[in-house]
């Protein structure tokens, strides 16, 4: 909502300047996006002028040479390109030396051989309107040389404010004035508008079929309407408020909406079949061509304004093309109604049609506003369009009665944590329109939707006391904050990977395809919830390679969404360099979690068929070369499963005082037997004295033979009772060699 300050000041008397008003509003009521200033920075050289003489420029057919009285002894000679005036006209003049709002400084200079000492202004040159077909012709009687700013709104300050969804009352200049009056204890003037006398006795037929959708409809008939351009002040106001000027009648409806907050509509009365209005729901198959030229298929839930035969407007959203006010219109029916918000919202949403009107209706407009809106519009139509007003109708259902809400002042203080005297609370409420009654406070009609409970009254007090409330902490009886096991493991995994040289990525959980599909995505790329993190990381790796980043190692911890109701956390990674790189990282994660995983050969279409392993919690492998150019390792583990399997505590074991005895064993064995299987067999055969065993070498060559390889194990034997000797462990070695030989056909190498 753009609020021109001069307009605001018509309704409220306050001293505060724009910046102070903006500051106060933003703390207590609504965000203020900008304070804009329109017009020339220095207005001293802008004056009223009277044209003493005007004639064709001797050297140019399209220019006039004018003598203009600008209040100085001698008239100023000004060359002008417009022809919509003649001698005697009162005009707007910028004298030589003045700077126009567009930054151009006027100089005294010759134009086609004749001196020109300034400019006779058109409305677009001082940003009052869009018209450049002629210059501004002012009312007669203004003193030549008097400041132009006194005759036209030469300068304006505009607050661009963004009220929250519950404060539809602030979507009007008068509503803002009411708030400003409360903030600065300024005087709020009465609502603008006085009904001129009715002129004639004509019946206006209004019928409401759906009082829930339209609790009130004020219709007023106007005759002898002259459609014309709006006066300069009105055009400037609308322009400053961000609304395009169309014609006097349409401008009046928009002006009243902006002034009071009640959207209005004007129909060409002669085009209403049967001269009547019916408010009803759409019929099956009904259509309407709206003002924007779009043919719209309606549904039964759409609220319509119809005449005797057909739909003529989408209630509260947009009028129909056939009954639109045009240059030839002489009679209009003015609609000042009230519509129920949710229905308007649904229709405007379905039709993807949002207007200034629907934006207000969908938030709930005060039903008591229709009357004053009709009055102000009537006054303006009579004044500006020469209309007379021969008939009216006001049809209404039961309008909600303002409620009275009790308030315990001590409750306010409990919520705020600040003592606000009861008298002060009452004063604040009174200033924003709440009336004190025996049982409590009577809610003003324009706040009926958002103030319904004691807590809402407390908020009214609080928003004027925000800066006074102190900073404290809750006085607690117990403290119990700590990270959960899962949260601690997440940190451990993050730190392990960072320590391994991997960096963290955040990729979108929305991907092109996945098990949970969004019916209305914003794009095909973000169409479904992902089942796995890997493809997103492949993309991230690809993007880094595309800009020649080296040493790419990325991981992410995020939810996966394999099915409805299950969102396990995954940790996944991708690294340049292949299987060993990825497996190293996975081994570090498992080590940190205190789990010894069992790796099995795996087969996944996106992985290298010979370099892919599976564990209970996920997989690790080399990316299939068709997935991404180059050699890449990757892994993805279920972090929740990892947390479930993680060893809760470490169980201490007494350390032996005696050194361990280490021996190496190498076997030649079939390729089919995996290191893990051999390791298990060695452990089983080694018995209690075998404290540790690991694979430390793999070798293939002439000595091992085709289809076979050599695997070397380092064994560590130990006892808590004595130092072991070669003789002690010889039988164990033999048992191990025997077992491995029997189970795998492995041959001990010399």
């Amino acid at each position, binding site marked *: 909502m753009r609020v021109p300050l001069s307009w605001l000041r018509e309704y409220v008397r306050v001293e505060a300047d724009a910046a102070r008003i903006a500051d106060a509003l933003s703390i207590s009521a609504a965000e203020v996006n900008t304070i804009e200033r329109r017009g020339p920075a220095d207005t001293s050289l802008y004056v009223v002028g009277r044209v003493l003489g005007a004639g064709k420029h001797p050297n140019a057919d399209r220019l006039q040479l004018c003598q203009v009285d600008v209040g100085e002894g001698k008239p100023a000679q000004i060359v002008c390109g417009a022809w919509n005036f003649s001698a005697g006209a009162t005009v707007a003049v910028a004298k030589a030396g003045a700077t126009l709002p567009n930054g151009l400084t006027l100089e005294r200079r010759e134009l086609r051989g004749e001196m020109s000492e300034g400019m006779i202004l058109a409305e677009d040159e001082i940003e009052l309107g869009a018209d450049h077909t002629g210059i501004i012709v002012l009312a007669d009687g203004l003193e030549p040389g008097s400041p132009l700013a006194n005759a036209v709104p030469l300068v304006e300050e505009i607050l661009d404010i963004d009220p929250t969804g519950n404060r539809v009352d602030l979507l009007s200049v008068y509503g803002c004035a009411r708030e400003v009056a409360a903030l600065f204890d300024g005087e709020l003037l009465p609502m603008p508008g006085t009904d001129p006398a009715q002129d004639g006795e004509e019946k206006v037929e209004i019928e409401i079929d759906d009082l829930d959708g339209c609790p009130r409809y004020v219709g007023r008939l106007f005759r002898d309407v002259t459609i014309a351009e709006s006066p300069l002040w009105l055009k400037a106001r609308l322009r400053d408020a961000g609304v395009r000027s169309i014609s006097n009648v349409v401008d009046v409806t928009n002006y009243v909406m902006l002034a009071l907050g009640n959207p209005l509509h004007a129909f060409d009365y002669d085009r209403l079949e049967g001269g009547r209005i019916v408010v009803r729901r759409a019929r099956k198959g009904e259509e309407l061509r709206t003002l924007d030229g779009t043919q719209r298929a309606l549904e039964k839930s759409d609220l319509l304004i119809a005449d005797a035969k057909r739909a003529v407007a989408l209630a509260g959203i947009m009028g129909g093309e056939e009954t639109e006010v045009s240059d030839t219109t002489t009679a209009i029916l003015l609609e000042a109604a009230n519509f129920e918000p949710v229905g308007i*919202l649904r229709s405007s949403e379905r039709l993807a049609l949002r207007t200034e009107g629907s934006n207000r209706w969908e938030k*709930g407009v005060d039903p008591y506003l229709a009357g004053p809106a009709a009055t102000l519009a009537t006054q303006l139509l009579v004044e500006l369009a020469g209309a007379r007003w021969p008939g009216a109708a006001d049809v209404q259902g039961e309008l909600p009665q303002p409620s009275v809400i009790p308030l315990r002042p001590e409750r306010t203080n409990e919520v705020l944590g600040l003592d606000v005297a009861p008298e002060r609370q009452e004063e604040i409420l009174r200033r924003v329109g709440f009336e004190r009654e025996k049982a409590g406070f009577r809610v003003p009609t324009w706040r009926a939707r958002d103030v319904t409970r004691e807590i809402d009254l407390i908020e009214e007090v609080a928003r004027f006391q925000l800066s006074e409330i102190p900073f404290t902490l809750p006085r607690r009886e117990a403290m*119990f904050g700590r990270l959960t096991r899962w949260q601690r493991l997440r940190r451990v995994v993050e730190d392990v990977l960072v320590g391994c040289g991997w960096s963290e990525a955040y990729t979108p959980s929305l991907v092109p395809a996945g098990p949970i599909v969004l*019916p209305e*995505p914003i794009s095909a790329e973000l169409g479904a*919830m992902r089942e796995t993190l890997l493809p997103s990381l492949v993309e991230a790796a690809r993007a880094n390679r595309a800009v020649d980043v080296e040493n790419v190692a990325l991981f992410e911890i995020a939810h996966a969404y394999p099915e409805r109701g299950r969102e396990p956390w995954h940790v996944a990674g991708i690294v340049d360099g292949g299987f060993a790189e990825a497996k190293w990282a996975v081994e570090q994660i498992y080590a940190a979690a205190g789990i010894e995983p069992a790796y099995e050969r795996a087969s996944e279409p996106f992985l290298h*068929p*010979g370099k892919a392993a599976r564990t209970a919690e996920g997989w690790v492998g080399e990316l299939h070369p068709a997935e991404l150019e180059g050699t890449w390792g990757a892994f993805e583990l279920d972090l929740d499963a990892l947390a479930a399997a993680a060893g809760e505590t470490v169980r201490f074991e007494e350390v032996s005082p005696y050194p361990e005895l280490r021996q190496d064993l190498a076997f030649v064995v079939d390729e089919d037997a995996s290191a893990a299987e051999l390791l298990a067999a060695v452990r089983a055969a080694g018995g209690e004295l075998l404290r540790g065993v690991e694979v430390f*070498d793999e070798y293939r060559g002439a000595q091992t033979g085709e289809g076979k390889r050599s695997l070397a194990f380092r064994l560590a034997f130990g006892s808590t009772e004595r130092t072991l000797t070669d003789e002690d462990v010889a039988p164990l070695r033999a048992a191990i060699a025997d077992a491995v030989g029997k189970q795998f056909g492995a041959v001990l190498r010399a």
Partner: protein
Amino acid sequence: MEAEALQKEALAAAEAAQTLAQLDEARVQYLGRSSELKLALREVRDRETGMALNAVREALEAAFAARQSELERAELSARLTTERVDVTLPAELLGDVRVRPRGSLHPTTLIRRDVEDAFIGLGYEIREDREIETVEYNFDKLAFPAWHPARSSRDTFYVDADTVLRTETSPSQIHILEEKPPPVYMVSIGRVYRRDAITPTRFPIFHQFEGLAIDRGITMADLKGTLLHVMRALFGEEREVRFRTHYFPFTEPSMEPDVSCGVCGGSGCPTCKWSGWIEIGGSGMVDPQVLANVGLDPGEWGGFAFGLGLERAAQLRYDIPTIRPFWENDLRFVRQFR
């Protein structure tokens, strides 16, 4: 030879090729310079025959190309199978593991950890909740009115009529209050979704942290003090916090906290749009309706709630002008953070 029979024979030959070499041989025979088809094409006199023969040529070329990529993939797989390793071996026996310089945590995670630590210090618990949420928990129980624009499918991703991608972390308020009796002090952290177009300052997915304190005698002053503490933990001890009235469905009164601008110290600069203050999130006193919705007596229990964005906080702390790098994962960005 008749075109149709020729096409049939050539297709069979392509299918029969078991190696790339065999396929090349067949290609020369049926599509080569001196193939029957090419010779016939050269002698065409009428338009109709020409079109028919060209159709055959195109069909054959497509079939040979398709067979070629099949064979290539198969040969690649065969080659890859010969590269088979024993996946149970320790990493260091499977190939080189480079010594890499330490990596970096993402700024979103750095902020998340600071938030966690600040609230653990205040005795809060930290939780994560589901992202695919019911309309009931995301809107209804949080007292969103029917007209609230967030309920519209313009603003929110619906999975079906009763299910959305959560639009804020606030459903956690309901979850925890249904799980355990007050007093409750918790912070919920995680991804949320808004149906926004992607712009330099907006991404449809971002992270929020949501705080909730429910106890006896909680005041707006407590909310102000808590957020001051947290803002200082995140942005530095010299920061100030102010509050502006706002509207949220599930708090009443509602306020938006602003933190004093770290670039200019409050005197005004482009970062804070010359106001000296920077918007940082939303907050308020838990609406009595929300308490009633989870079976608590609003006469006895009260509380506050607040929600802030992790990316937004990271942007402010590290002076990152747009949201874009947070989701691009360019290592030159991520590596700047320690």
